[in-house]
């Protein structure tokens, strides 16, 4: 399960670290730090605190795009959006990091795997307001096709709810990634457990 931060709940650092810790300890998750409103300096401090917290939990911290910050802060890896620096170049520059990549087609999924990417986010699988820029939903059949075309883990993203999770796993997804369901920090642990029950079933 990948829990993506959207500049809402993790920016309030004091509270955020506690929430992230509760989250990281609940079940193994990938926390994807996606804080576009933060300058590199504050993002680096936040990452450093999250990275040292997460070490003992079995969960992982991925930084969106800025692999320099991932390297400097001790995060596990970097998540590369489609408009990022080319993945093969990032791989060469930061061989020790885990690298994920967002893809929106089978062709780019195959290409990403060839460039040495460790896992993919494919979507939007379902309609979602936060991913409208990436066009209409791709649907479960395309998700299945992408999962069959690559041997690295594929996480379904876009409009994912606990109820829709099982269908994605059935189509071959390794896991799911979501932002919206996790914005309500108070309900975060409960939401994680709901997702987890569908993933493990």
């Amino acid at each position: 399960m990948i829990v993506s931060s959207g500049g809402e709940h993790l920016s309030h650092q004091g509270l955020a670290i506690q929430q992230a810790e509760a989250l990281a300890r609940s079940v193994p998750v990938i926390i994807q730090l996606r804080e576009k409103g933060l300058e590199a300096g504050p993002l680096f401090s936040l990452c450093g605190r999250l990275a040292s917290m997460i070490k003992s939990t079995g969960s992982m911290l991925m930084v969106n795009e800025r692999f320099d910050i991932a390297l400097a802060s001790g995060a596990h890896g970097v998540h590369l959006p489609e408009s990022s620096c080319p993945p093969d170049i990032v791989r060469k520059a930061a061989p020790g990091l885990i690298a994920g990549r967002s893809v929106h087609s089978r062709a780019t999924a195959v290409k990403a795997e060839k460039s040495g990417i460790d896992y993919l986010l494919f979507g939007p699988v379902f309609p979602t307001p936060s991913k409208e820029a990436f066009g209409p939903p791709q649907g479960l059949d395309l998700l299945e096709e992408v999962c069959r075309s690559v041997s690295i883990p594929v996480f379904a993203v876009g409009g994912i709810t606990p109820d829709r999770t099982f269908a994605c796993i059935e189509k071959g997804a390794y896991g799911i990634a979501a932002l919206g369901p996790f914005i309500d920090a108070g309900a975060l642990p409960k939401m994680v457990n709901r997702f987890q029950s569908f993933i493990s079933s």
Partner: protein
Amino acid sequence: MTLPRRFLCVITDESLCPVELACMALEGGARMVQLRRKTASGLELYEWAVRIQELCRQREAIFIVNDRVDIALAMHADGVHLGQDDLPASAARSLLGPDAIIGVSVANTSEAEKARYDGANYIGAGHIFPTLSKEKTTPPLGTSPIRDIGKAAGLPVVAIGGIGADNVQEVMKAGASGIAVISAVSGANDPVAAARDLVDRIWL
């Protein structure tokens, strides 16, 4: 890579293609180009940076990337320029290695001392004069603190902010090793001539 004794640094802005601007700046005698595009994607920055670095190599000029140490690492830039809200220079130094050129923007002597301690090679001091290129919440420094900032850091000072043909000599007399400009070159009718004129005045 070592810093030239007196030099012009041209910084890219949103008005022109960064590669075209770099080409004209180098033609006009700039010895340093800084890629700065806050809204561009990582891929755009990477592709521009690769091309500008090549142009700079041909002219034995220095190429640095603003803020994005990741881009500099990916395409082996000569260095980076960091603001006070960017990655700390110490972190950039450990990622980029001992040969990279690292500049840090400062507005006072204590930031200058810290920059040196963190491993900076030069100081960007500013803004010296009023400028429209960036929104500023603090008043301009004027030219008088330049020497003290340089002494505090023990490093060359590149002055920035509102510098043009009419005040470049004042800045150099105040102790700057170089000047960094945005609109004075990119906004000129003839950027090559504007850069050349600034370089001439730096050496007057």
